[in-house]
């Protein structure tokens, strides 16, 4: 077990890519989260999983309790907006009738799942039904209005024609169906972030069973942290079943150093915000979420 102040505890870290062509077609990078959930569903490790499906408006994510491969595949690709996954956690065990729930989500959502398991207030009979969690790397998130502004105004593209969005090389990239590529400096998007993200001290989903994201691996590949015993078991079986091709993280560029660098950047910056909040307001600090 490796313990890192910025990357959390993990058993191993690899660079990996799904072998499923259908998943890779629309996946953001290596298709890790989708493939893992499809594998877990087909193996009976989970009965269903909460994923970020398609919402009513273009590129608006909406949580979906997926109970088939087809439904899970609807969630391929990153949607840079807020999807309240945990709002379906209890319902998944109720009217959906799931006994083994899978959850995908970003760092704060993994924290919420663990918190719900530890203190199941309003989560009766839920803790033991969370069977598998896959966390995503997350720097910050945008409310839908923000995403509209970034894409429609800054990048000057129509959201409904966007094929793919990506953050990399210091820029926010927008690719459209007609072949337009537009980008804007990441710096310009900062003011549209949701303020809650500025106190988040987690970059790589420290509390998930397995966490994954593009940072640290070459294009089309993902960095994967295997964190828990359960995660390790599922990962080993999935690799043995040929669901993934893997490379040691040490052999790929840019490697773990970049992950650590970005994690440090995010966490150090946000620690500062937590500190600053102590003196916000008049005679009354803003609430410290970690106190």
């Amino acid at each position, binding site marked *: 077990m490796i313990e890192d102040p910025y990357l959390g505890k993990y058993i191993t870290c690899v660079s990996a890519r799904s072998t499923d062509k259908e998943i890779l077609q629309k996946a953001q990078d290596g298709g890790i989260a989708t493939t893992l959930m499809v594998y877990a569903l087909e193996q009976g490790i989970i009965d269903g999983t909460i994923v970020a499906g398609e919402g009513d408006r273009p590129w608006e994510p909406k949580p979906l309790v997926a109970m088939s491969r087809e439904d899970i595949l609807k969630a391929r690709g990153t949607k840079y907006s807020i999807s309240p996954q945990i709002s379906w956690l209890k319902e998944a065990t*109720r009217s959906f009738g799931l006994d083994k729930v899978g959850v995908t989500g970003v760092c704060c959502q993994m924290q919420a799942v663990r918190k719900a398991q530890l203190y199941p207030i309003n989560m009766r009979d839920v803790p033991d039904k969370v069977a598998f969690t896959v966390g995503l790397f997350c720097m910050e998130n945008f409310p839908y209005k923000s995403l509209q502004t970034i894409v429609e105004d800054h990048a000057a593209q129509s959201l409904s024609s966007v094929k793919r969005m990506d953050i990399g090389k210091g820029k926010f990239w927008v690719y459209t169906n007609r072949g337009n590529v537009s980008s804007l400096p990441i710096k310009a998007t900062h003011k549209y972030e949701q303020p809650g993200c500025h106190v988040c001290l987690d970059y790589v989903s420290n509390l998930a069973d397995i966490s994954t994201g593009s940072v640290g691996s070459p294009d089309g590949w993902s960095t994967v942290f295997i964190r828990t015993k359960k995660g390790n078991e599922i990962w080993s079986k999935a690799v043995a079943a040929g669901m993934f091709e893997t490379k040691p993280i040490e052999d790929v560029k840019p490697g773990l150093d970049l992950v650590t660098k970005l994690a440090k950047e995010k966490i150090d910056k946000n620690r500062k915000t937590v500190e600053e909040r102590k003196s916000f307001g008049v005679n009354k600090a803003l609430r410290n979420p970690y106190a």
Partner: protein
Amino acid sequence: MTKVVEISPTTRHEGHSKLTLKVNDEGIIERGDWLSITPVRGIEKLAIGKTMEQVPKIASRVCGICPIAHTLASIEAMEASIGCEVPTDAKLLRTILHAANRLHSIALHNILILPDFYVPGTETKFNVFAKEEPFRSIAARIIRIREIGQTIGAIAGGEAIHPSNPRIGGMYRNVSPLAKQKMADLAKEGLVLAHEQMEFMLEVIRNMQSLEYIDVAGKQIPIPKTLGYHNQGVMATSPMYGSSSLDENPTWDFARWKETRPWDWYMGEVTIDLEDPSYPVGGTTKVGTKANPQMEACNAVPTYDGQPVEVGPRARLATFKNFDEKGTFAQHIARQMEYPDCCYTILKCLDSLNTSGKVLADYIPQGDGSMGWAANEAPRGTDVHLARVKDGKVLWYEMLVPTTWNFPTCSRALTGAPWQIAEMVVRAYDPCVSCATHMIVVNEEDEVVARKLMQW
């Protein structure tokens, strides 16, 4: 010479209540008063001015044992007032929820009453918390039945306690095919256990019924053959679910109901002059203590055709299935006989349930202030909620819960029983006292009542 003995509080049932009993020299009750001493919550007053969606959620909070009955009765009272018909699949989900609640509640009641009963053929009373057999396996079976009931309730209703899925106009969401299958699997398992548990309980109850004496705190107390008999009528609206004023043939009549205050029903101030420190647990109230049931009772006294009536499993079986036994043991037996019915009802509803059917009415009227009522056959009896809704807001709200009906009836049924086993008579009603506690309407003519109540 008549003496007064008081058991306060009574134990092994939901809520706080007490027994003030006038007994003769042989210890036989001449007049018994059983009353609620749970503080008033005032749900009916809280409801006024709230939206019709809010009130069922608030009403459900009156108690955690049959919140499902309260939620359903309250929602249906609102629907009756506004004139809203719900889709069939929503009705089916509600019935499943209702039956699941009854299943778990009967099992819970088994735990509460078993310590009163002997293991057949022995002189040992049941201790469901003991490690030894057969107690351990009985307890395990009861717990599993409860778990099954609660899980089915959680799936159909969103939550086993205070269900979140029912709403005005139907349900928030239908269940998935997987959830339907899960409920069916659980009900199948429950059916086998419920049959076993029913057979077991019937044997235990019949054994007790054949005994002449029961041991209470080392004394042999005779069990009268007429234990718990009364001459009040019975009231039930349906063998399983209930009725409402929207029905084609409503089975409850608003015009036959009248509410009396405890002041007019219970005995006045008395001084306790009989005491038994050995009575479990902790003895009865000390000699010299004053008791005043008229003033202390927090329950109202509802009457049907001018008389208190019995509600509950025996009332349901007597009304709909020609069950002709009376008294405490008959009530126990009737309750056990409802065990398999719950599972059969769930399975039957699941057969007809369409998981892709709509569960919410297309149009939900906002109400014109007309009166609507809904009766839900809660595990322990008929739970009637009445409401007037205008423009989506509740103008008036009333809850007539099972144990409110049973308080005065049971008080009558105490007559003739040795006071030491009065609690057994009470427990046969499966009392759920806290919801039977009411805000008492101050009578404009009787100022004394109003003033005294305020002081208390």
